[in-house]
């Protein structure tokens, strides 16, 4: 008896979609889709902003490279031994 009731419930549930009607899509769908197609997707930057960002990055990288090159040249140029260096060497020999 209980089993029959269970089976009947299962059959009813499985048949519940037999006469399903179609739901209506949003009536403003066309306008929304057109709007979505013309507006840039969120997260996408305008070309002008992209160029400004790229220029800023190039400037920062360029300045860093210039500074690095300048300090490298300064360090590698021949230098006169300082007084302390002379005395250190002198003490070492004796």
């Amino acid at each position, binding site marked *: 008896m209980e089993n029959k009731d269970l089976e009947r419930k*299962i059959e009813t549930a499985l048949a*519940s*979609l037999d*006469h399903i*009607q179609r*739901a209506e899509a*949003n009536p403003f*769908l066309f306008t929304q*889709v057109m709007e979505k197609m013309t507006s840039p997707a969120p997260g996408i930057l305008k070309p002008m902003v992209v160029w400004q960002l790229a220029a800023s990055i190039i400037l920062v990288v360029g300045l860093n490279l210039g500074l690095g090159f300048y300090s490298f040249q300064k360090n590698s140029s021949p230098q006169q031994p300082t007084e302390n260096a002379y005395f250190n060497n002198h003490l070492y020999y004796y």
Partner: protein
Amino acid sequence: MREEDLIQSLQNGDENAYRSIMDQYANMVFNTSLSIIQNTADAQDITQEVFVEVFQSIKKFEQKSSLKTWIYRITVTKTLDEVKKLKSKKRGFMFTRVFKNKEERSMPDVPHFHHPGIELEQKEAASILFLAIEKLPDKQRVAFTLHKVEQLSYKEIADILKMSLASVESLIFRAKQNLQQSLKTYYKHHT
């Protein structure tokens, strides 16, 4: 208008063609997505995304299948993507449930979706069936929904899912078996 002419007009960016295709397929896309994702707001968003995709990719459409099949395919893909996103969000939520007490954790799933196209006397049974459909593996869920809700033939489903007819038959057979099992478990715990 012949389908080839409509596709040509779409490829030329004709706004009337856009309107025409949406008049023709909007309900189909919305209903397919709604029955799979079981949430009206999500289905509306997906419907918008499907048509944006259709209009943006129409130039790449090679007409190897009908326009309807192609639109169905985009709808199913987009909807399943969204289902996956929701599932991964849910998994994150489930992790927090580990810290809840035993009684809260064992709360049974309750039917939450009421399809607007179901007759009043069938609403309860249908919402329980939708709950069971939600638990099916993705392919079974899609094949069963396309067959039962969209009333598509196995051949049409095979074209949309790019599968053989036998595979679709097998998918729907297994879906029905799984649904029977889920419903049995549900009714045993709710009598």
